[in-house]
Structures are given as C-alpha cells and as structure tokens.
C-alpha cells in the first residue's frame, strides 16, 4: 500500500490486516511509555486546508507515538490563498523531505491529485464529501472489538442515520461495514441521500450502494443492532435540504422515546463532533452501548497502524513485532 486515499481501494484482506495491526497499536498505547521508535527519522506533514483540530491531533499523536517527526501546515497561515498554486505548495513541502502527507481538503479527489505532485505517501484525512478512510477504519475497529466478533461484522444490522448525501464518513464507513459482512440501512429524508439513490433515471452498475434505504427512523429501530448517527449541519437549511433542524430532530434524531424501541444492548456510534439536541437528544454518557468515546481513542491506534503500514520498515503482516520495532 503506497497511499490511503479511499476505502474503495482496500480489499477485505487489507482491511482486516489493518484492524489486526491496530490491536498491537492499542497495546502500545496502554503502556506507561506509549512510544516506540518505529518511524524514527520519518517526517509526517499534516496539510489541513479545512479546520479539524480533532483529526489533525489524532494523526499527530499517532505519528509521535511512532517517533516520527511532524510538521503542520494549515491553510489559514499558508500562501495558498495568495496566488501560489496548491501544486507549488505540495512540491515545496515535499522538497523539504516529507515522507507522508496527511491531507484534509474541502474538495473531493484532492489527495489523489497530490499523488501526481509528490513521491511521498498520501493519507486522505477527509476530502470533501468523498472519503475519510481512517474514520471508516476506526469505526470498523471499534465495532468489531466491541461486539467481540474478530475481524468480521457478519450479519450485524446497522442503521446509519442522517446527511448521507454530504457525508464522507458515510461513503467510507458504509464500505468498511459492508466489506466486513454487515447489513446497512441508510435512514434519511430523500433530500439527504445521494441523488443516485433517489432518482431512478440515474441508474448505473459500477457505483452501487449495497444498502437498504428507509425514510422513517421509527420503522427500523426495532430491527437494528447498531445506530450510527451522522452530524447534521445547520447550513443544510439554506439550500432547502431540510425544513428546520427542529423538524429534522423530531423525525431523525435519537430521542429517549426512540431509544426505548431499540434492543437493550444496542450500540451507538457517532463520528463527532455531536450536535446535541439535533441528531442526538439523549446524553450518550447514559447510553450503555455508546461507543463514541472508544471511537476517539481508537482513532489514534488506527492512525498508528496506517502510518506504520505505509512508512514502517517493510511493514508486512509476516514481520515480527521486533522487526517492526514496536
């Protein structure tokens, strides 16, 4: 694996390998000295053209625990807005000896474009509404470990609720869940589903979503094991995707009343940050099956696994821990 750009590029085997490697990484994280020299003398640059302190810190923590040098480049302080082309910026930074770029950008496909401009490894940390593969990996890791199902989600019924249309999390995490054998139902008003799922004239074979669809959350609650809530953004009102956040919360939010309809051991997930009172009307701390905190913790382990498999000393599954320097 040279880059991590999209979950579409990962086979089931590669996905499972990363999940297993993340187990080792979370072992390291539990040590009193949670740091190993595996990536010493490697430089990881985070290139965030869109603000996301959480994701950036998660990657940087992961890099530091593997002893990589880190540098941060954020768009606000950059020259990108002053006429220098993005390509110039990437070429300049890679001339400084960057081994891997962790990139977040508002435009889908930008990480792929960057692979043409540099020899460094590229990790997509979120590109527009396209992909956010490390989120998908950490979601898969969190859920498989919580359900104690090894590297599988065979038969697990998952409802993903919210703004699928604009969600890179949905595009990546659905793929990971489906690869692992889960049955996914997307729950949203039609306006918040990808157009190809609502317009019959947009039929096509090569970009299928192997999912079920529902426009009524109440109808699916009794038949799922996991509820994955997506963040609802207030701006969606402006282009008439929703009537109001209140109306959305009323029909698609997880309220105490809806929680009562779920199986008592259901699992709750959310990629964060949460909009309390919108998609989530209960205190997740009071939901026994909430995995939201584990998602954050596991984010570092997964990102360590990703950086290690891209940058580590020929980090293949056959290598021993000692050889990998962990």
């Amino acid at each position: 694996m040279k880059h991590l750009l999209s979950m579409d590029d990962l086979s089931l085997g590669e996905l499972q390998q990363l999940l297993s490697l993340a187990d080792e990484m979370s072992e390291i994280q539990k040590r009193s000295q949670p740091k190993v020299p595996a990536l010493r003398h490697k430089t990881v640059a985070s290139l965030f053209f869109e603000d996301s302190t959480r994701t950036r810190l998660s990657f940087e923590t992961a890099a530091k625990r593997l002893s990589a040098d880190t540098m941060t480049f954020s768009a606000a302080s950059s020259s990108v807005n002053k006429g220098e082309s993005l390509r110039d910026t990437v070429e300049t930074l890679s001339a400084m000896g960057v081994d891997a770029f962790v990139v977040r950008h508002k435009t889908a496909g930008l990480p792929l474009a960057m692979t043409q401009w540099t020899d460094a490894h590229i990790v997509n940390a979120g590109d527009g509404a396209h992909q956010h593969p490390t989120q998908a990996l950490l979601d898969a890791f969190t859920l498989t470990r919580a359900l104690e199902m090894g590297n599988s989600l065979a038969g697990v019924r998952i409802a993903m609720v919210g703004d699928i249309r604009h969600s890179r999390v949905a595009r990546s995490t659905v793929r990971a869940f489906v690869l692992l054998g889960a049955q996914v139902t997307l729950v949203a008003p039609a306006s918040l589903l990808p157009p190809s799922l609502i317009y019959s004239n947009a039929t096509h074979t090569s970009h299928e979503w192997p999912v079920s669809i529902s426009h009524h959350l109440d109808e699916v609650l009794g038949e799922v094991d996991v509820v994955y809530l997506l963040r609802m953004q207030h701006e969606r009102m402006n282009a008439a995707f929703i009537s109001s956040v209140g109306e959305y919360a009323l029909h698609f939010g997880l309220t105490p009343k809806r929680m009562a309809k779920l199986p008592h051991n259901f699992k709750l997930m959310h990629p964060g940050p949460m909009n309390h009172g919108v998609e989530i009307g209960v205190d997740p701390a009071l939901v026994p099956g909430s995995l939201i905190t584990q998602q954050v913790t596991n984010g570092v382990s997964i990102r360590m696994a990703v950086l290690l498999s891209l940058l580590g000393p020929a980090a293949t599954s056959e290598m021993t821990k000692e050889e990998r320097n962990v």
Partner: protein
Amino acid sequence: MSSNKSVLITGGTVVNASGEVLADVMIDQGVVQEVGPNISAKYAAENKGGPQRIDAASCVITSAFVDLHTHLREPGREESETIETGSRAAVLGGYGAVVAMPNTEPAQDSVAVVEFVRMQGERAGLVDVVPSACITVNRAGLQLSPFHSLAQNGVTLYTDDGNGVQDPVIMRRAMEYAKELNITLMQHCEVSRLTEGAVMHEGCCSSHLGLPGWPSIAEVLMLQRDLELVRETGAKMHFLHLSTARSVELVRQAKNEGLPVTAEVTPHHFSLTDEKLTGFNTVFKVNPPLRTMEDVEALRTGMQDGTIDAIATDHAPHAAHLKDQDLLAAPPGMLGLQSALGVALKYSGCSVQRVIDLMSWAPARIAGLTARQGNAVASGNIANLVVFNPAAQWEQSLEQIVSKSHNTPYLGLPLQGQVQYVVRDGKVIVEAGVIAK
C-alpha cells in the same frame, strides 16, 4: 486579401451539399475558377510557372469549417489564449471562421471591445474572427447590452455564455430586440440556482465520488422557458452546447412545430461521459458537464437526424496554473479546435457529408457568414476551403497543440480525420498539416 498565385488542388473528392465528385479544383484571384475531373492537364507544372499544386489524393475538399463557439480569452486572459494563438489552433483544425465568445475581460458588451476583437483577428490573419456580443452588460444579467449599436456594427450573435440569462424579464426583452433587429440570441441553458458549487453531472458517479452534482434538469428548465419565449416573440434562438437527452427531445419537438431555433453540440459531449471524472482530473471539468452514455447516444442521434444543426467546439483554454487546482476551484472548460474533426468523424456516427454540414454549412448560415464561408466548392465562390483525409487515424499529443493552454481531454484517445490543407481567400495557409510561412 486575395493572392495572385493560383492554386490547383488535384485528385481529391469535392464534397458539396449537392453531392460529391472526384474533381480537381482550380483557384485564382482568391476565387474558385473551375471544378472538374482531370482539369489539371490544362495547366503548366508548378516549376514551369504553373499554379501551386496540392495533392489531395484520398482527401475531401470542402468549405472550411465554422466554429460557433470559441473562447479566445483576449482581451483579459492572455495567459490562457490570445486571438493569435487561438487563430492558429483554429486554422490547424480546418476552420475558416470562429465566433469569438464575449466572456472576455472586459466583456464584449460594447462596440469598442467588439471592434478590438475583430481587429486583432484581422491582424492575426489566419481565420475570420467573428465577435459575438453579450446579451447583458458584463454578462451580469441585469442590464441589456446596446443591441442597436452593436447590430449596426455588424454583430449578429449575442450570448452571456458562461452564464444563462436567469431573469425571465430580461430574457423576454432581449428577445423583443432580437426580433426587431433580426439578430440571434445564443443561450447557455443553466438555471444557476440548481448548479451552485457543482463540478460534474449529477448522477451515479457524482453520488459515489461525493462531488456536488449538476443536474440535467438545470439545462432542461431554461431550455423549456426559452422555447416558450421564442414561441411568443418569434425571435431567432440558438441553443449552445446541448448536453442532455431531454434537451435533444425538446429541440426536436420545437423544430417540428416550426419554431425558429437551432442547436449545437460540442465534440466532448458526444464522445466522453461523466465516468471520466472518477480520476478527479480537472481537465474533464466542463460546463455543461460530461453526462451519461444515454445522453451521448441521444446527442449522436440528434446530430444524425438533423435536430442538432452544428458541432461547436466551446474551445475553452485555461492556463496550467488554473487547471492545477482542486476540482472545486479549477475553472470549467477544455480545448476543442484542433481535435473537433477527429472527434466528429470517430464518434458522431455521422457520414462525412453530414459532419461537413454540422461543421461548416449550417454554422455558416446560423452565424450569417455565407458571404464568405460555408459555400459550395464551385466556380465563382470565394476559396475558403479545407482539405482533409477522412480516414486518417491519429492520436493527439501535447506537442501538436498550438493553443497557449494544454487542457485537451483527448490525449491518448483514438481520433479519425486529419486536416491537411486550408485555403483562405485563395491562399494556402495550412500545408501538409502545418501553418505555411
């Protein structure tokens, strides 16, 4: 402008609207003097003081092409193209005339800017550069252009291309002027509220890639509105770059009803689909967007059955630094002049004669250029001709491109039909595929 040196084109097939015939073509004083089989025997050899000879074996001889839709970028965006470099691309593509789109900086919304473009075209001296003008001042959609002044200065085509005219009041008034002045409005059909932030066709690909989609309905709605306005006002209307199957259907119906409408299609819309965007390559970002195979097939049918009148390139050069951005930021548009014939013959499913109609005869009529362009190769007509090999298979390479920009979508794709010679006012200005000194 006529050259004193006479030219004799031998051994080719002359293709006119009336039919095709194996014939030689004798040109003198800028005018076709004689067309007939084996007339070359009458003339002395070139090295004995006879006419310049062009060997057109296995080639077609016909009227030079006319592009209804060329962005030459001058004035204002000379880093992407100039009237001179655009003229070079045009003549190598077999064109005798190009309509210069008015979205320049400043825009072609005044007599002064229009005259500047015309003058720069004459200075380059390779093709007839025919300036069009805006429908509204600075294409802002708010205030009508000075139609009377512009029409008095010979402008016959008006468009806010790049934008559709959104306001129905403005469009209705513009049509009233169009009717009284016998000018043609060219609409870029796009309801902008439906395409905010869009970078590609809204469909399966965009849904998968998470890219903001450009729904077909945005084109169809404006087209429908304008057809009703044409029905009401009787103004002549030309529809730029049809891209959807439904658009073809609507234009077909309108023509059956006898409305005075014409339509064009670009080479890229009948040869490429939205699948090209899966690599996120900004070269394939274009407005209107590349659509689905179903649309491509409807466009081809429309070209074949006459619903679509013209192939127009929408040649839209963008300098590398503009296209080397992310998909949201990169401007839409692709080159077209040098590849149009090769795409048309390879992908349209039309006969050679039909392609010539689409690229020369019909657009010359739509643009009102028949005094100089799009006429039969026949004695007495001005010699603005192209000679091309309709069977030649080729691939475009970066080195061939003479535009200032290189944003062609056709690198590595098979093309068919290669321009060999272009004659302008009786003078050979493209010789064996290169611009003559």
